[in-house]
């Protein structure tokens, strides 16, 4: 877990009743994903229904935090605050061990060393009590 300074310029999630548990858990170092009680599928991002079968009230489960880089790009141009200063950075789609894919940065690695299918492990940037940003770094 990394604490951020007061000068966090990147966009923060506008949380709502559905998503607040996800961001709050991340602030305490846990990655939650939803699972459907009816069809057992995991889903990302959270909704109040299962996007595979339509059943209601998926439950939260803690993910292992292990996954692989499904695909990625090293972004060299982004004029937005927080990112303009950070280029080049890795923008990736991580496929979790449980199945769903999520968007994240791969951090703590030279961008040139990132590869498709590279194993990664979740880590968290704590922004506030209510918001932690899940990120990924190379798995040992």
């Amino acid at each position, binding site marked *: 877990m990394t604490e951020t300074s007061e000068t966090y310029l990147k966009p923060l999630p*506008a949380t709502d009743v559905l998503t607040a548990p996800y961001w709050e858990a991340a602030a305490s170092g846990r990655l939650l994903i939803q699972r459907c009680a009816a069809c057992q599928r995991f889903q990302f*991002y959270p909704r109040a229904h299962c996007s595979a079968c339509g059943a209601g009230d998926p439950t939260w489960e803690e993910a292992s935090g292990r996954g692989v880089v499904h695909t*990625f790009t090293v972004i060299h141009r982004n004029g937005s605050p927080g990112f303009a200063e*950070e280029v080049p950075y890795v923008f990736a789609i991580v496929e979790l061990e449980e199945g769903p*894919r999520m968007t994240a940065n791969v951090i703590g690695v030279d961008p040139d060393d990132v590869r498709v299918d590279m194993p990664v492990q979740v880590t968290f940037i704590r922004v506030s009590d209510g918001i932690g940003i899940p990120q990924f770094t190379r798995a040992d």
Partner: protein
Amino acid sequence: MSDWSGQVAIVGAYEHPARKTPGLHPFQIQADCVLRALEDAGLTLDDVDGFATAASEVPEGGSTMSAVEVAEWLGIKPTYLDSTDNGGAAPLSQLGHAAAAIAAGQAEVVVISYAATTYSQAVNIGTGDPTTGVAGPGQFELPYGFTLVGAYALAAQRHMAEFGTTPEQLAEIAVTCRSHASHNPHARFRDPITVDDVVASPVIASPLHRYDCCVVTDGGGAIVVTSAARARNCRKQPIHVLGFGEAVGQVQMNQMDRFTATPGTVSGPRAFAHAGLTPDRIDTAQVYDSFTITALMILEDLGFCTKGEGGAFVSDGRIAVGGDLPINTDGGGLSSNHPGRRGIFTIIESVRQLRGEPLGLQVPDCEIALAHGSGGALSTAATLILSK
């Protein structure tokens, strides 16, 4: 859905020639294009009973009731209206919807129009401003620095990893489009480039370079469509709509089913089935080229080659005029123009090629053309098959 195949025709088309129109409101560009497209058809505003546009983005006018507001600017009160907003595919979807409405007797003369002043307003569409907000699903993507170029780069990276596609093969598409643009007096960029130029240009989002990305321009265009029966009395040779298909994928990149394909895998086969044709019958394909990878995957998705073979397919001059399947004969979005929803120009260039009225190069013996639009971040697709 095959009932209206061939019973509806494009009778008017016009593309605004300017690539920079500082100070001009995009609604006026639409109006200029509509009036010239109607003149092309030998029709007037009085003949129009249907209107379609999408103008929700800021450089398009930022309209919340696009088709209503632009109809007002034009001075018409249509009884058929469509502001389908599926990104760059919108004009093709709107034409497909209009064709069905005309065949069903719900409209007689429909105008499909588009314009944006993205260049003059200096809108950062590729490397900055996100397309969705940080509320709702966007909150799981925007905190990580999403850019539109980056979204397509995710696809290019995966395509390279799965199939061995190379940056040089992607570059072939940019080089071909520039070669075609060098004959188009209106094209934004006309100086020829080489594969080396493309791969040596700055990386925007790996593995995509600057020359893998479309140009940013102002501009617009309009199409007039009516029944094949009424088309016989119009000024120009009618261009018949033989087939149409549209499809939807996702918006958030973490919802992509497959990074090496677009919704064209659905819209393409639907359009070919509707037309009763196969890809080998197409004389020219005007396909969306927001990025080189977009065009490459679309060619695969439409069945011009098998999935993964796109890199080899676009090499050796096959997609140039004179090759087996000339694409983007006006120079495409990569070199001619890209104000936003470039789908309108894939239709207009198809019409020009089928009529034998090219801005630059002409595909010989051009009888059947395909136009294909793509929108958002590999989000949508619409395919049209057109013939004389």
